[in-house]
């Protein structure tokens, strides 16, 4: 049996018993049992375990609603009374709150309780955390490894008093690490998923050690200017993550704050080969959101280089008079995928010829949001390339460039394969997000400092 799910079901049942009249209860759970092992210099810096259970309770009466988020113990006998008290407290608050014209939640279950219910329990094979720590240290022997291993069970659940239930559970691991040569010269790596295969980790560690050897060469410096660049999938992924910050949500678009507003309004376009999709089917996130709406398998956001759609939360649906497509309140992609192109990835260096191979980008932000001009830094393994061969590591460079040039006029091509980049974010809880990105070859990429 799934103890997290039993806990959630028990709290939902208990809270439902205290509803009065036409009150409706929505509940969202986020639970995880996580092990974290932090490494520096291939030694353990901090190691420990965290058990956390979070529950969002939302009480709805007519068009009034009030919500609270609680951290709970995981023991239904102890948490149940607290949830009941919270429902009563929210009922008191409803009296002081106005009606909400934009309230919208999934009421499908009134007619058919099973209609919007869903379940996704991913299979997993993980080692005990202490075994993973031992394996990592054994493979890192003699290297300067720094990073984080995070693993364990996690679950997300939605339920309402109308009978709808949605459950997502997984046991996952994420090992996000770097091998350092010296100063800021390093190779960034990751290994994440639900099936731990020691030989996979060993292969990735060997590959990192091989790249590390190149970083020992004297660093090459280039003056600010425009360069032909090959962006590795991880670097493209960083650009896509930045675009996810306000780029695709309907509210940001309708209130003129989206960095892609000019694309949305037809004043700009991207290269016709650019296709972006919120690909929930291929992603690793739950397929439901806080008000109980299911996410479609895919939502096209950019197609043929033109805006094709937006992520619409229930609230925005009500505000702007359109249908929701199951976006969360933040209307940010959780499984953004860029379609691959036709450049053979193994020939990318050769196609680059002379220029810069960018392994990773770092600390991106908008330097002119309406123009979708972004700035950020190269980081980790970034190399100067001549005649299709890596010559030397490149000292870190700042770029300042518009997305309309990078994925528009200056895009030479996208690689024929793409990588799934699982999010290693652990702010408050372990992320379930992902990005799929191909590599890209871009002309005249502006380095400024």
């Amino acid at each position: 049996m799934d103890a997290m799910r039993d806990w959630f079901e028990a709290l939902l049942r208990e809270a439902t018993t205290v509803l009065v009249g036409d009150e409706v209860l929505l509940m969202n759970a986020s639970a995880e049992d996580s092990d974290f092992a932090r490494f520096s210099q291939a030694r353990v810096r901090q190691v420990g375990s965290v058990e956390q259970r979070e529950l969002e309770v939302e009480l709805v009466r007519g068009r009034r609603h009030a919500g609270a988020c609680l951290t709970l113990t995981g023991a239904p006998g102890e948490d149940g009374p607290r949830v009941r008290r919270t429902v009563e407290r929210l009922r008191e608050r409803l009296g002081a709150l106005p009606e909400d014209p934009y309230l919208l939640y999934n009421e499908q279950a009134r007619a058919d309780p099973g209609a919007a219910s869903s379940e996704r329990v991913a299979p997993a094979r993980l080692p005990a955390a202490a075994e993973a720590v031992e394996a990592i240290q054994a493979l890192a022997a003699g290297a300067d490894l720094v990073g984080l291993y995070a693993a364990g069970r996690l679950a997300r659940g939605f339920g309402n008093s109308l009978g709808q239930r949605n459950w997502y559970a997984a046991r996952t691991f994420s090992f996000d690490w770097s091998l350092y040569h010296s100063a800021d010269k390093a190779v960034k790596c990751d290994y994440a998923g639900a099936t731990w295969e020691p030989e996979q980790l060993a292969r990735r560690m060997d590959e990192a050690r091989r790249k590390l050897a190149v970083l020992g060469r004297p660093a090459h410096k280039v003056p600010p200017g425009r360069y032909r660049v090959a962006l590795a999938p991880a670097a493209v992924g960083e650009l896509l993550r930045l675009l996810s910050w306000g780029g695709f949500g309907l509210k940001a678009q309708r209130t003129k704050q989206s960095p892609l507003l000019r694309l949305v309004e037809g004043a700009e376009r991207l290269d016709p080969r650019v296709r972006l999709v919120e690909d929930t089917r291929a992603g690793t996130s739950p397929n439901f959101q806080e008000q109980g709406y299911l996410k479609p398998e895919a939502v096209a956001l950019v197609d043929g280089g033109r805006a094709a759609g937006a992520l619409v939360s229930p609230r925005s649906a009500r505000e702007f008079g359109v249908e929701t497509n199951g976006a969360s309140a933040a209307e940010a992609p959780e499984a953004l995928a860029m379609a691959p192109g036709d450049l053979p990835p193994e020939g990318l260096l050769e196609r680059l010829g002379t220029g810069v191979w960018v392994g990773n980008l770092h600390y991106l932000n908008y330097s002119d949001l309406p123009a979708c001009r972004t700035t950020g830094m190269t980081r980790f393994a970034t190399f100067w390339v001549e005649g299709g061969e890596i010559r030397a590591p490149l000292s870190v460079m700042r770029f300042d460039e518009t997305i309309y040039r990078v994925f528009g006029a200056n895009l030479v091509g996208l690689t024929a394969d793409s990588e799934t980049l699982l999010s290693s974010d652990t702010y408050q809880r372990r992320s379930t997000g992902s990005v799929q990105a191909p590599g890209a070859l871009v002309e005249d990429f502006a380095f400024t400092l």
Partner: protein
Amino acid sequence: MLDTLARVFPQVAPKAEFCSLRYQSEANEALAVRQGVLQPPRLSEDAGAMVTVADGGGVGYAATADVSAAGLRRAAARALDWARRSAGRTLPGLAPPARPAPSGAFSSPVSEPWESVPLAAKVDLLREACARLKRDERIVDWSAGLWHTRGQTCYLDTAGARVQQSFAMLVPDLRAVAHAGGETVSRSLGGHGMARQGGLEVLDAVGFARAPERVAAEAVELLLAAQCPTGTMDLVLAPDQMILQIHESIGHPLELDRILGDERNYAGTSFVTLDMFGTYRYGSELLDVTFDPDVPGQLASYGFDDDGEPARREYLIRQGLLVRPLGGRLSQQRAGIPGVANARASGWNRPPIDRMANLNLEPGDLSLDALVGGVERGVYMETNCSWSIDDSRNKFQFGCEFGRRIEDGRLGAVVKKCNYRGISAEFWRGLTGVGDRSTFQVLGTPFCGKGEPNQLVRVGHATPACRFTGVSVFGGA
């Protein structure tokens, strides 16, 4: 809570060389009115504890929201297990250093408690502020918000430490977005930088009541403004941009865990090295920077850090000379140099690491008029809206919401899309003027991210306006 935990702690602490118990709770209420509509109001309550055990050369932690004796006992057993399994595998110098057992309490000053005003009245206050932001049809989105936090921490350890602290914080927010002719601009009340400890009296301290008309008018003014000029020139930064400049290019590079390499996989390293303390000229002689946990009402004031270490004011940079890093007692032990009490955790479920707390630039003797008066050609900028810096905290580029040209010592036309870039190691040496108390503001932000696993903490920055020379300034695309 401290008394309850103190009764339980001896029962749950395992037989080990060292054990600590850190309890942390927070209750939040966030209210916002956007375009006259109350956004879904949210309450949150979060509480739990972390037990840390050191034994036989290993250190481990376990965190749980079950703070009953049974729950803490399970966490202690798990932490002990990690300590034993990590023995022989850890970095050197992680055993908690001996010290006199700290004991004491801290409480945020509050003169007008959040709870003293009913919910409906707070919603009315926000409705009224929000309505005053809609001054022009070109304002297409506008909102007013308040985010209140009440928190408590307790720290106990087997060496006899006994600390309790309580906090109250308020984050006010006003925002107006103007749009016309394909151009969008935003103006806010200090970005996210107006956070302070206290109750509703914070609203007076940050000028919340009189701000909506100014925020709205400046949004429209920006819409019509020319772009920020491009070139190398003098730059005067207002306090609500200075806090970002201090944060990114002094605070983060001085964090001792970055210097020691712990953050290299995520937040990054530092251009500062251990041998630079006591000898390196960080900035001009006008630059005085302090770690100051004692400023009443500043966002990250406290009596003790999350390792229970008593906190006190220290100079980090004095007359431009780098003298001390931002490193807690464990990092100090590892590095062999003195630091400050800044081991902090974002919550009960994350272990303490070196963080900024209150990091302040001490005031000088120039009024704003005098700062501007010393500029022949330059730009004055307010309110951060874009930030990016390299992983060594050297090559930065920052953007501001609002700017004005400076010509012949006078503030001139408003300019938009204000950006500047530079290199930390050079930028602070170009500091040519530091504002006096009349320009000094106590500010702070709830959003500073760092650490693996990731942690978001609140940091305070108090600063005057400052003037820099020879800065690369530019506008939009």
